[in-house]
């Protein structure tokens, strides 16, 4: 080793070296005093141990004092100097050595918590292969411009956010969404920086690079979340502000009364509320970091603490418990051909943005394409625009919120809607129509009636498949003692059928979007702590009303992340029991840490006042309690 590398090594491991040296001197000085009668030599070595171990502590203490903060390093320095002044060399060396060892170990373990997120950032490659001036060039990933095309080989990491313009592949999105299964990506699909291209080559048009990628944004948010103080933390901080000065006053008072210097110095050592102030942040940072790696973004300690009290989870049905891909499952004509019912309904619904309308228009388009396919010329009607154009426009069109649409086309009035809309308009519903509707709704389907000039000519049944994971997720929450509720705009019968299929405890049907909010308020008024799971866009008001709003599929949609307290990056319902259980575990973990800290301080105080605890043993217990709460908090990293 040359001189330079020795200096470098010393700089990198200064704390460890200082602690070890002070420890060795302390051990040597103590043995010398215990085994021999060289008391002067022993004292000298112990003072040396104190100086070696205490130099850095005293230096920081000096900064604490000049910056007018009162920290443990000031207290330790005072205690060590005090002990030397009264001739307790052994105590002085022990306090300094134990404190150095403790803070060295604390720094090391905290480093693990602090770097947990950086692993995520390291997922993004430094370079990108860009198509520039007709050739492929390797450039720094940060320098890729928006709109440039990046080529990613199979097995390569994707360096930018963008949309696929060529190629097809399976992409592992775990770093961003936490999903373990790769996702199929083809033309015009979105991909994220930091995800791994597993199969085929992809060409990607860049939409964001450098610090403007989804992954970077997520990590920034996670850090903000970790830094935001939870209510417990701010409470403790306020307490700590008075605690330390109070203990110092107590130490001075105790000396004035008892003239016992050791007692007052020991009070100083335990005067820093160590474990109490360190415990809660470590628990929360670990939990938020763990969640981030599993694709769950928690907004902060406050939200996490509230989530730990959840006893009721309300799910929006469409797109949350179901896949949100409504398709037509049956068309019935009453005196009219089914095909005519469909095309008339499609025209009426064409301008509507409701998901039921989309299903009807899509179906009509598909039927037409199929019909054209049979002929000699094959229509290239795959494109949505072309397909939508093949359905004629209505002359005019009105939405009746929560009920349906009223439109005019070819001189006819067409009403497509639910029973409520028909009743409003005094449309007579024959028994066979009512029977058909009842039968379909009993299977969990949604049915709309098609009315032409006041007469029912048909009905269209639609289905939104349940997510495979939904029943398991509901069961897992129930096992954890949490009530589950489904909120839906569907009618009673459809809702009951779906609720039974999922196994959910309760359902609320026929809700307008604003009703969902008041249902949640109702549960809160009954004393429940309510979590609401939704897509974060349509459900934004109810997510905001709930104690904890959980948005699904939030990667890429900033609005969802803004409104929610927790956001699931992927559409992965199975993260919900995990997130709820992690929150509960965190809440317990914080309580354990606070409990342990309070217990330690109480025992130490009692011990000092009854003279059972001296400087060295007080410091040992103090440092042990700090390490214990850090290690306990870090368990949440592996939850």
């Amino acid at each position, binding site marked *: 080793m040359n001189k330079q590398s020795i200096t470098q090594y010393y700089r990198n491991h200064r*704390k460890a070296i200082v602690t070890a040296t002070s420890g060795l001197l302390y051990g040597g000085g103590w043995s010398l005093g215990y085994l021999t009668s060289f008391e002067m030599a022993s004292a000298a070595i112990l003072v040396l141990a104190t100086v070696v171990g205490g130099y*850095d502590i005293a*230096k*920081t203490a000096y*900064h*604490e004092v000049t*910056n*007018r*903060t*009162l*920290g*443990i*390093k000031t207290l330790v320095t005072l205690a060590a100097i005090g002990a030397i002044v009264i001739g307790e060399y052994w105590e002085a060396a022990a306090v300094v050595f134990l404190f150095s060892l403790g*803070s*060295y170990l*604390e*720094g090391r373990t*905290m*480093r693990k*918590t*602090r*770097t947990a*997120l950086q692993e995520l950032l390291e997922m993004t490659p430094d370079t990108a292969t860009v198509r520039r001036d007709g050739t492929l060039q390797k450039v720094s990933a940060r320098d890729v411009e928006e709109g440039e095309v990046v080529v990613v080989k199979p097995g390569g990491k994707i360096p930018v956010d963008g949309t696929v313009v060529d190629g097809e592949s399976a992409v592992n999105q775990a770093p961003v969404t936490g999903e373990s299964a790769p996702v199929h990506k083809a033309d015009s699909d979105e991909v994220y920086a930091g995800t791994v291209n597993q199969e085929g080559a992809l060409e990607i048009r860049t939409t964001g690079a450098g610090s403007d990628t989804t992954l970077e944004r997520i990590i920034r948010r996670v*850090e903000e979340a*970790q*830094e935001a103080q939870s209510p417990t933390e701010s409470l403790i901080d306020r307490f700590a502000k008075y605690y330390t000065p109070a203990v110092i006053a107590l130490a001075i008072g105790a000396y004035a009364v008892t003239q016992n210097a050791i007692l007052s110095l020991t009070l100083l050592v335990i005067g*820093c509320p*160590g474990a109490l*102030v*360190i415990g809660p*942040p*470590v628990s*929360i*940072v670990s939990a938020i970091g763990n969640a981030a790696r599993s694709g769950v973004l928690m907004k902060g300690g406050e939200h996490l603490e509230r989530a730990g009290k959840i006893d009721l989870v309300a799910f929006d049905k469409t797109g949350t418990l179901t896949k949100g891909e409504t398709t037509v499952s049956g068309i019935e004509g009453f005196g009219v051909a089914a095909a005519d019912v469909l095309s008339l309904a499609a025209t009426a619904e064409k301008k509507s943005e409701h998901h039921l309308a989309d299903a009807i228009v899509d179906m009509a388009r598909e039927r037409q394409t199929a019909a054209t396919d049979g002929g000699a010329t094959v229509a290239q009607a795959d494109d949505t625009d072309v397909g939508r154009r093949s359905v004629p426009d209505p002359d005019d069109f009105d939405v009746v919120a929560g009920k349906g649409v009223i439109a005019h086309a070819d001189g006819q009035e067409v009403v497509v809607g639910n029973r409520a809309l028909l009743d409003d308009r005094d449309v007579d519903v024959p028994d066979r129509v009512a029977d058909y509707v009842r039968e379909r709704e009993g299977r969990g389907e949604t049915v709309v009636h098609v009315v032409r000039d006041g007469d029912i000519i048909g009905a269209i049944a639609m289905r939104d498949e349940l997510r495979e994971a939904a029943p398991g997720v509901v069961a897992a929450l129930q096992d954890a003692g949490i009530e589950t509720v489904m909120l839906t705009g569907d009618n009673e019968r459809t809702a009951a059928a779906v609720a039974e299929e999922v196994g959910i405890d309760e359902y609320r049907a026929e809700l307008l979007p604003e009703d969902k909010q008041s249902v949640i308020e109702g549960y809160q008024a009954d004393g429940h702590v309510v979590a609401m799971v939704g897509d974060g866009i349509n459900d934004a008001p109810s997510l905001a009303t709930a104690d904890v709003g959980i948005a699904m599929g939030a990667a890429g949609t900033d609005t969802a992340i803004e409104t929610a307290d927790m956001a699931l990056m992927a559409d992965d319902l199975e993260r919900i029991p995990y997130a709820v259980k992690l929150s509960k575990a965190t809440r317990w973990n914080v309580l354990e840490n606070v409990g342990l800290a309070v217990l330690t301080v109480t025992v130490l105080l009692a011990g000092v006042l009854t003279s059972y605890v001296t400087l060295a043993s007080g410091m040992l217990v103090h440092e042990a309690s700090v390490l214990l709460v850090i290690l306990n908090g870090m368990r949440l990293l592996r939850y």
Partner: protein
Amino acid sequence: MSDTTQFRVLDFDCPTCASTVERALSNVDGVQHVEVHYATGRVEIEYDDSVTDPDAFAETIENQGYTPQPA
């Protein structure tokens, strides 16, 4: 002109240490706003770049006994 820089300090060993560093940094000439977070070790400094520069901040952090890393 006002500029912002970040450091990462992984070896904070107590919450007070972080607030001491925060105070020390805010006493550096030209510093407008400082945030030091114990939990994440993140240090964010807003400063007037005609008066001071990030090297001065790194030195201040080192003087307090901690190791700044570029973030």
